């Protein structure tokens, strides 16, 4: 018996219509529709598209929670062995929808899933580390290439077979390094890569250096007098006695403490947990690291709108990059949710 596949596509690929039909609500149809036929051909009888879920791109993105739930229910009711979404090529909202559905299928239905899109599709960056995304060309002209790769990976996943490296299977690198045998030995590949580099021709490094990524500068604050500023420090300032036992180095957590009632930090109420520098000065007067006293004055003078009631603290030294990133994300999320637009981060 062939494997059961459910296919997720948008209104355009279902031949319902273009942008004017993008608010099309989720619909389930038996059998393959549009690109599902190409998948069926690529499955070569090993698997078959038994049903297709169609949803307009605008509808999906504007009614995210409801649409996701409906789509998941339709997929689950069809009892698939594996789910395929898209491919979305360069269509941004379609790509995000495919990624969202695929991630939900994996996490909530615990089913194997494959999607596909162009590497610059915003959905790619959002989901490539979460689900297998076959890298496609930037337009539907790439269907002929994409369908066999998606079909082959879908079958392997459905059968629980070992998945090869990204370069073998055609999925986007997902941050997990997987070994495989190349056709040529390393030295030969290196000589070829060098010749391409010398000739100014394109070449692909086998190990991209960890990204030295930059974040675009935040917008300038035009109305400081009505802006609440949050305080963050990697200088380890904590309430006296370090109630959460933030480690002096290699901190495994960050602290979040109420400063709404403080006009000035003093040796009586705050100190530092930092182990990487001489802590005497910060222990004498924590304002030397976290300038609560002057910000309160500025608040009174009307220069700033106020101070966010909580400050965030961690110990910069020795804290693993991955942890620092995690703390930053958590702090960023809280501030964004609270509508805070400005933060001062002090480091020692």
């Amino acid at each position, binding site marked *: 018996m062939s494997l059961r596949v459910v296919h997720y596509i948008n209104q355009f690929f279902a031949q319902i219509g273009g942008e004017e039909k993008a608010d099309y609500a989720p619909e389930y149809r038996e059998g393959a529709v549009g690109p599902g036929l190409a998948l069926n051909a690529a499955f070569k009888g090993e698997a078959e598209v038994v049903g297709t879920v169609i949803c307009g791109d605008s509808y999906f993105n504007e009614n995210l929670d409801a649409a996701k739930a409906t789509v998941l229910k339709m997929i689950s009711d069809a009892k698939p062995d594996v789910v395929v979404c898209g491919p979305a090529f360069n269509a941004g909202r379609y790509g995000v929808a495919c990624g969202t559905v695929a991630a939900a299928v994996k996490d909530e239905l615990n089913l194997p899933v494959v999607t596909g899109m162009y590497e610059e599709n915003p959905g790619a960056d959002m989901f490539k580390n979460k689900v297998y995304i076959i890298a496609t060309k930037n337009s539907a002209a790439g269907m002929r290439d994409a369908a066999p790769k998606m079909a082959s990976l879908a079958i392997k996943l459905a059968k629980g077979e070992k998945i090869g490296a990204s370069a073998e299977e055609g999925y986007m690198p997902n941050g997990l390094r997987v070994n495989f045998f190349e056709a040529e030995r390393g030295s030969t590949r290196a000589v070829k890569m060098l010749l391409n580099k010398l000739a100014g021709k394109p070449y692909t490094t086998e190990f991209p250096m960890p990204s030295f990524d930059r974040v675009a500068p935040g917008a300038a604050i035009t109305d400081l007098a009505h802006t609440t500023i949050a305080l963050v420090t990697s200088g380890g300032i904590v309430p006296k006695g370090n109630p959460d036992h933030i480690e002096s*180095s*290699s901190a495994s957590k960050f602290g979040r403490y109420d400063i709404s009632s403080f006009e000035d930090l003093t040796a009586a109420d705050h100190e530092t947990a930092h*182990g*990487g*520098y001489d802590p005497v000065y910060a222990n004498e007067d924590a304002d030397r690291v976290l300038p609560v006293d002057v910000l309160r004055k500025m608040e009174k003078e009307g220069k700033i709108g106020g101070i966010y009631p909580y400050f965030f603290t961690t110990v910069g*030294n*020795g804290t*693993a*990059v991955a942890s620092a990133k995690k703390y930053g994300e958590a702090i960023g999320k809280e501030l964004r949710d609270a509508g805070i637009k400005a933060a001062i981060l002090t480091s020692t």
Partner: protein
Amino acid sequence: MLLVTNNEKVREKFGSLCTLQYVEGGHVDVLIHVRDLVHQGHKLLTHPLAGSVKPNETPFRSVALDDASGALDLESLELIEAALNVCRQFPPRFHRGEDAPADMREDFAEIDFRLIDGAIAPQLQ
């Protein structure tokens, strides 16, 4: 020269030849101590991941820094942080020297000793 080690063998030979700080603890404890010294303005003289014995295998580590405590040296900071990062990726097999079987302990200690000896003995002459 300032030598940080948790290896008794290194302490025996170099304790009288340079300033030596003996760390009671494992490999990572030595690196953390070195990191703190770097923050205090000491420069690394030897690579904190000397040797190709995997850092999660050997419980011993010896690192040399300069005596002077000047401005923070960014290269030293990057090296020591990267070394700590590598060590944290892999859980140590033997946390401290005494956790390793006797013959391995002796060999780990000997290699650590030889590596640091090869690096700093010419500098101390």
